[in-house]
């Protein structure tokens, strides 16, 4: 539909000239051109008139309902309550939660060497006791582990996080289908600048990079996809 080309390249700068937002160089270029070009002077009048009509039209629209601010403040209070509940849960934890927090603190970096030593010694003792046992053939059948769906030697791959920005034209249903196909879920977003964070647990043998590539293979839906550092 965009077939009527401007008569002069300067014509496309007229809205910026009217708003006073051109660079000094563009402004000078326009001033010089307008003095010499009657067609662009006419275009200037036309843009000015259309801008005036548009401003008046938008100004004439109704305002949002006065209830809107109440709705916003209700949502903000809800958000504050949720945040407070989480903080309270951390500081007023039950004995079981405190035990759990204590257990997790064992994995803090300063305790890692000590914990690793304890585990190595424990494994050595366990191995020695199995080897010295007369019934060691009756030990756990490795096949059972495979039957449970965790083949021996399979590395456990942690979930990855990917930052994604979708095309503005992408429909939500198509985005959700793609994310489901990858076994991912949205954990955050959209951010003020339109980014979403996806959490994906890669299947065995599938690298995080190939998941990012799978997203990038849909340029009609995905604008950018970046792997976030763990």
């Amino acid at each position, binding site marked *: 539909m965009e077939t009527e080309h401007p008569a002069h390249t300067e014509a496309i700068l007229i809205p*910026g000239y009217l708003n006073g937002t051109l660079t000094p160089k563009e402004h000078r270029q326009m001033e010089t051109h307008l003095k010499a070009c009657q067609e662009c002077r006419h275009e200037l009048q036309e843009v000015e008139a*259309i801008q005036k*009509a548009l401003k008046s039209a938008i100004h004439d629209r109704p305002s949002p309902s006065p209830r809107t601010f109440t709705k916003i403040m209700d949502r903000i209070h809800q958000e504050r309550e949720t945040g407070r509940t989480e903080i309270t849960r951390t500081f007023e934890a039950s004995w079981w939660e405190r035990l759990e927090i204590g257990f997790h603190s064992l994995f803090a970096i300063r305790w890692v060497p000590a914990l690793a030593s304890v585990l190595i010694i424990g494994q050595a003792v366990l191995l020695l006791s199995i080897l010295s046992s007369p019934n060691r053939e009756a030990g756990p059948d490795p096949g059972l582990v495979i039957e449970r769906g965790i083949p021996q030697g399979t590395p456990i791959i942690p979930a990855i996080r990917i930052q994604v920005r979708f095309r503005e034209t992408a429909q939500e249903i198509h985005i959700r289908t793609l994310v489901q196909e990858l076994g991912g879920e949205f954990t955050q977003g959209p951010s003020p600048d339109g980014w979403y964070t996806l959490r994906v647990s890669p299947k065995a043998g599938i690298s995080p990079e190939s998941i990012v590539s799978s997203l990038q293979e849909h340029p009609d839906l995905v604008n950018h996809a970046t792997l976030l550092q763990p």
Partner: protein
Amino acid sequence: MKACSPNNDEAFAVLYQRYERRIFQYLMTMMNDGALAEETLVEVMLAIWKGLHTFQGQSKVSTWILGIARHKAVDALRKLTSLQRSGMPLEDIIESAVSDENPMEDSQQKRLAAITNRALTTLTVEHREILHMAFYEELSYPEIAALLGIPVNTVKTRVYYAKQQLKKCLQRQGLTEQIL
């Protein structure tokens, strides 16, 4: 903006009063739907409240806010097809506003505004949006380019062609003699 923090409700209320109409009018331009624009306004203000600590002052406050509004609008529009929209379309709102008016008071100006708004609704969302940014918000070409994520030269030509389309629509409504 400096006084604004997630715990200062009074400063946030001032921020809301200052920007509610601008954000709402932008959302109306994008959505053509009053109810959806109000719902999205709530989401925009909540995102602003959550993101107050992330505002670095690298852009104007209004541009930062407009950027948030844009992403929320795109997100809301993504969830809908035009058939699913159940709210009152912009042109109906304008129609009702015009029919409620006092015929002796500014009737000609109101009629022009209503017809211009109706003409605007016939444009594509890209054209409506860029006209809103260039003609109503009076943003510079680089500011629009940053908001839309497109090159500055594309902004310049898109504004030109959007204006041409609006002019054609106004001509079809027989308005060009009154406006131009």
